[in-house]
């Protein structure tokens, strides 16, 4: 996260490869399910043996004595509807919820976040020197109205995408944050309104940041968990 600061985001998970190295983020939506982006994975039927998620710690590479850290293998990947840029990851066992590990809410189907709502992005990715990238960083971004975003991007915006306002000081997601949450406070609960997707530039000051609008895919998310 560029322009963020160390923070608490108990639903943000770190996805680790077989060497135990963090490479992408994700969000815990159910004890055994994480949402992320397919750009982080080689295919929809990738063999994820040896891949794990790490939860409950603020450190990207915690020491062995971190009491709250949970590491759970990934057993399955399910790709979302075409062009959704979402994947669901099934964990080998349910995560234990506590003050460091919590579920994030899913939005109501087709819910549109009101413009101006302040949301959070979180991750262990690149900070471009703005913060300590060995810990979880969090940054606030206000939601931009769809029409205003469409104008700013000269029409290159789909309904399945959600924008945040460009800030004068560069704030945004960067390498290693992809797949992580855009969490917005709605009805006193933190809701997974967006998923961070790779873009060409990190934290651009003059352009809105794009996220996948999760509310368009909640029916699919529930269907996958049910089936």
């Amino acid at each position, binding site marked *: 996260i*560029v322009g963020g600061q*160390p923070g*608490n985001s108990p*639903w943000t998970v770190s996805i680790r*490869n*077989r*060497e*135990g190295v963090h*490479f992408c983020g994700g969000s815990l939506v159910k004890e055994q399910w994480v949402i992320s982006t*397919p*750009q*982080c*994975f*080689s*295919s*929809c*039927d990738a*063999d994820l*043996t*040896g891949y794990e998620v790490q939860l409950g710690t603020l450190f990207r590479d915690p020491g062995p004595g971190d009491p709250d850290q949970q590491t759970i293998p990934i057993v*399955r990947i399910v790709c979302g*509807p*075409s062009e*959704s840029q979402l994947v669901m990851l099934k964990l080998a066992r349910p995560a234990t919820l506590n*003050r*460091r590990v*919590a*579920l*994030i*809410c*899913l939005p*109501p189907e*087709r*819910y*549109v976040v009101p413009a101006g709502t302040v949301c959070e992005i979180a991750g262990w990715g*690149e900070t471009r020197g703005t913060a300590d990238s060995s*810990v979880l960083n969090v940054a606030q971004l206000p939601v931009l109205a*769809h029409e205003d975003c469409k104008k700013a991007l000269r029409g290159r915006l789909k*309904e399945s995408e959600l924008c945040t306002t460009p800030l004068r000081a560069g704030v945004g997601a*960067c*390498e290693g944050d992809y797949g992580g949450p855009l*969490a917005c406070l*709605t*009805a006193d*609960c*933190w*809701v997974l309104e967006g998923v961070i997707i*790779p873009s*060409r*530039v*990190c*934290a651009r000051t003059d352009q809105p940041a794009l996220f996948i*609008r999760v*509310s*368009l895919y909640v*029916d*699919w998310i529930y*269907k996958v968990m*049910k*089936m």
Partner: protein
Amino acid sequence: QRSPLNDFQRLRATELLAVAADPPPREQGSAEQCAQRCATSLACRAFHHDQQSQLCQLLPWTQHSLRVQLQKNIHYDLYQKKDYLRDCIVGDGSSYRGTRATTEKGLRCQHWQSMTPHDHRFLPSPRNGLEENYCRNPDRDKRGPWCYTVDPNVRHQSCGIKKCEDAVCMTCNGEDYRGTVDHTESGTECQRWDLQHPHKHPYHPNKYPDKGLDDNYCRNPDSSERPWCYTTDPGQEREFCHIRLCKKQPRPVNVTTGCFRGKGESYRGRVNVTVSGIPCQRWDSQVPHKHNFVPEKYPCKDLKENYCRNPDGSEAPWCFTARPTVRIAFCFHIRRCPDEQDAQECYHGHGKHYHGHVSKTRKGITCQPWAAQTPHVPQISPVTHPEAHLEENYCRNPDNDSHGPWCYTMDPRTPFDYCAIKPCSSSQVPSILENADAVAFEQCGQRDEMLQWKGR
């Protein structure tokens, strides 16, 4: 420090059944203890080991014996003596116990217990391995295993069995090498990948199923210059192995330039900057980051200029960055190539009224018939949804899924998926950009706001 298991080749979840033979008795012991017993027994050629109960059965046969068959059995691991399984030789081949029975010129071998057409003094005994008419080297001939031939004019001939280091060659950096060399280039025996002694290591075979980490064979799971292994010498952690390079190197396949497939090992495009705008470091430079990915040592990886590449099987193309504080960055901003099937037909709205005959998912998997109970037990069927036209295995949308027609799939790992059908271009789907009703949540999205992040 060598393990007795080093003499054995392991087959997981496998049982070796001998037709018309009583099952051998079970004995208590770890796999290493059973290997020790089998190694010292002249009759023992293999053993089953049940990891859960720590029991083993010593077996006087291998998978190459007559009237024996391999069978899947999740309770057993089968360990067979390598000498009986190899089709190459180590050293002079005097330990070779394979089943090759023809000479290098194609003559059939004479049975060792037979004295015709050639009389000889090499009589079979349990110790010397002279059985059937298999090639053997009882006199430690430098040319390796040999046999008397059934041709009265040719008394004996070498069998021309290759040395293990020459039997299988390697391409590129040997990441695909699956041969049976189990010694390093200095002659030290390799440590088994499934053991953590004498050297503790991260390459557990279970964790790397595609890397071929079998037994104690030389492998290259980390994209080193060539295959290597941990050694049985406590003073030497790991060492390269000597393996012949194939004369023909493979041509690059599925090369892409504008996008990448899988992990992007075949990406040959020219993106040379990280997503945060940092230029990539040239592969032939060691500044600012020192590294081993020197282009000359990786001839198949196309480490040109400072382009994003994936020479080590990472998650995506990557590069060393020109910024000293950021060593490596993934090039996730290069998009993935689309991998979905071309749509054959189109549907209107959500496709609730689609009654066509497409019966494949977007990944090309055949749909499961709606009335079938395998591989998936359906929650939606012609019985539960009689009005939904759930015929054969055609794609349908009985639950008005907003993402279009779908089906249960014949792939046991994929319960359901969307079909290779696209929305019709004239079809209007209502916009979502409208105000939502009041929302409420339960048991999610709450955190301890008082939980302060504490620095060290």
